């Protein structure tokens, strides 16, 4: 093997070894520098003294939320299993269980998969001109809401954004240029997944309102909108509260408290 004894042949070999090492190291360095530059998004990064504890609190609360959601999903699965083996009149139990299954499917409480479409929204990579509003170049909650809207209008049967199912109680909001869905903080890029017929893509991309959205956001500001049509789209179950404190099941009523006849 190589040594530092100074014999010409050995020296040549020795030099080759450190050159190879250095080359490899520089290559890795190059990759890291490139990765570092790429991971720097156009979103502003803040640094201040007060942010540290707040970030820690937010991360802690988000971890708690994830744990609570998992706990809820586990308990719901156990309840569903127990209900399937309930005692009582077989016909009555079956009828209620069928009703429960349909209500849970309809409400978004069951993870499902089927044919569909995934639309991804990413921030613009365009250079923001001086004086321009940098929020125009980022994906906003309004963009996510528009895509969800267009999917519903095109006939989607179920929709989710990243890991959050869009349900009857779902709000999609901005928090400082990022997006909350079901009060869960979602990191970009935003993937809106929808289940529907195989026509979904054609119907949506042909809709004038969607074309207008693409023109207003992708063409004007460089918001990146991409599509995927996987053979199978999977949507998660909603892991949130169904608790109603004000609304009570009621006999069929006219839709508003109009004066009694």
């Amino acid at each position, binding site marked *: 093997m190589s040594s530092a004894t100074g014999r010409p042949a050995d020296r040549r070999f020795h030099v080759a070894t450190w050159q190879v090492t250095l080359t490899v190291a520089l290559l890795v360095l190059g990759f890291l520098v490139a990765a570092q530059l790429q991971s720097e998004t156009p979103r502003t990064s803040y640094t201040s003294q007060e942010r540290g504890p707040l970030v820690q609190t937010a991360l802690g609360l988000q971890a708690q939320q994830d744990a609570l959601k998992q706990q809820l999903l586990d308990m719901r699965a156990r*309840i569903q299993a127990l209900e399937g083996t309930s005692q009582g009149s077989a016909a009555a139990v079956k009828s209620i269980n069928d009703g429960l299954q349909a*209500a849970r499917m309809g409400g978004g409480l069951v993870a499902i998969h089927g044919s569909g479409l995934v639309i991804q929204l990413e921030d613009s990579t365009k250079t923001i001109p001086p004086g321009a509003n940098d929020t125009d170049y980022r994906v906003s909650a309004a963009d996510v809401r528009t895509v969800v809207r267009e999917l519903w209008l095109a006939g989607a049967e179920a929709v989710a954004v990243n890991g959050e199912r869009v349900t009857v109680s779902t709000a999609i909001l901005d928090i*400082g240029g990022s997006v909350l869905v079901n009060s869960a903080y979602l990191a970009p890029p935003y993937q809106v997944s929808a289940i529907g017929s195989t026509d979904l893509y054609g119907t949506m991309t042909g809709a004038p309102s969607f074309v207008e959205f693409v023109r207003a956001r992708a063409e004007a500001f460089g918001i990146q909108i991409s599509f995927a049509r996987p053979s199978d789209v999977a949507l998660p179950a909603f892991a949130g509260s169904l608790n109603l404190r004000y609304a009570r099941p009621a006999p069929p009523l006219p*839709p508003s408290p109009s004066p009694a006849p």
Partner: protein
Amino acid sequence: MSHSLRSGRNQVTLALVAVLLGVLLVVQLRAQSGGTGLETLSAQDLSDLVANLNTRNDQLRVEVATTQAQLDGLTAAQARGDSSLGQLQSDLARVRAWAGLVPVAGPGIRIDVAGPISSIAADDLLNELRNAGAEALGVAGVRVVPGSVIGGDPGGLSIEDTALADPFEVDAIGNGPTLTGSLTRAGGIIAQVKATFPGVTITVTPIDMIGLPATTRSLVPSHAIPRL
């Protein structure tokens, strides 16, 4: 140049490269693991996020407690060999009321919207009501469920194939003062809509008891099956 000197310089170069490599590696790993996106939020945004997470976690704890009670009841009934029909029925009623599959009634607010509002702005109003904790929504007597979207052009809006008159009503069941406060606050949705559509007027009225019908749509997806 002596061999030992060159060897020493090589070592220094290698050491420097190694140090730089290490620093970059750590920075990169931190950047990857810190991919929560929280670094893009200002202190004010973080405070809002923390408040939002706190509210949601409290709701989730209530839901976990309710679900635990339900699970305990079901388990006990099965252990005794009792019928759990009552449990099943109350679970069914709860899920159906939440999902919009049965009529519901309760206190809340009525919002009258008049003028040439866009369908997106009208949908944003529903989004804000959900954010403020509305438990059930109706637009012109149509129950709002997943997929209920207000579509069409100003003056010709519709929801679920029902044309909306001008003015049209939005009913929301929930905590009236909270819902009203959320809509009417400075910079809130009503202020935003009025700024964008000067011809639109939106009035909010508290109502003691609002009745909303069930949805008339089947909500069960026909292109999906449960994921096990």
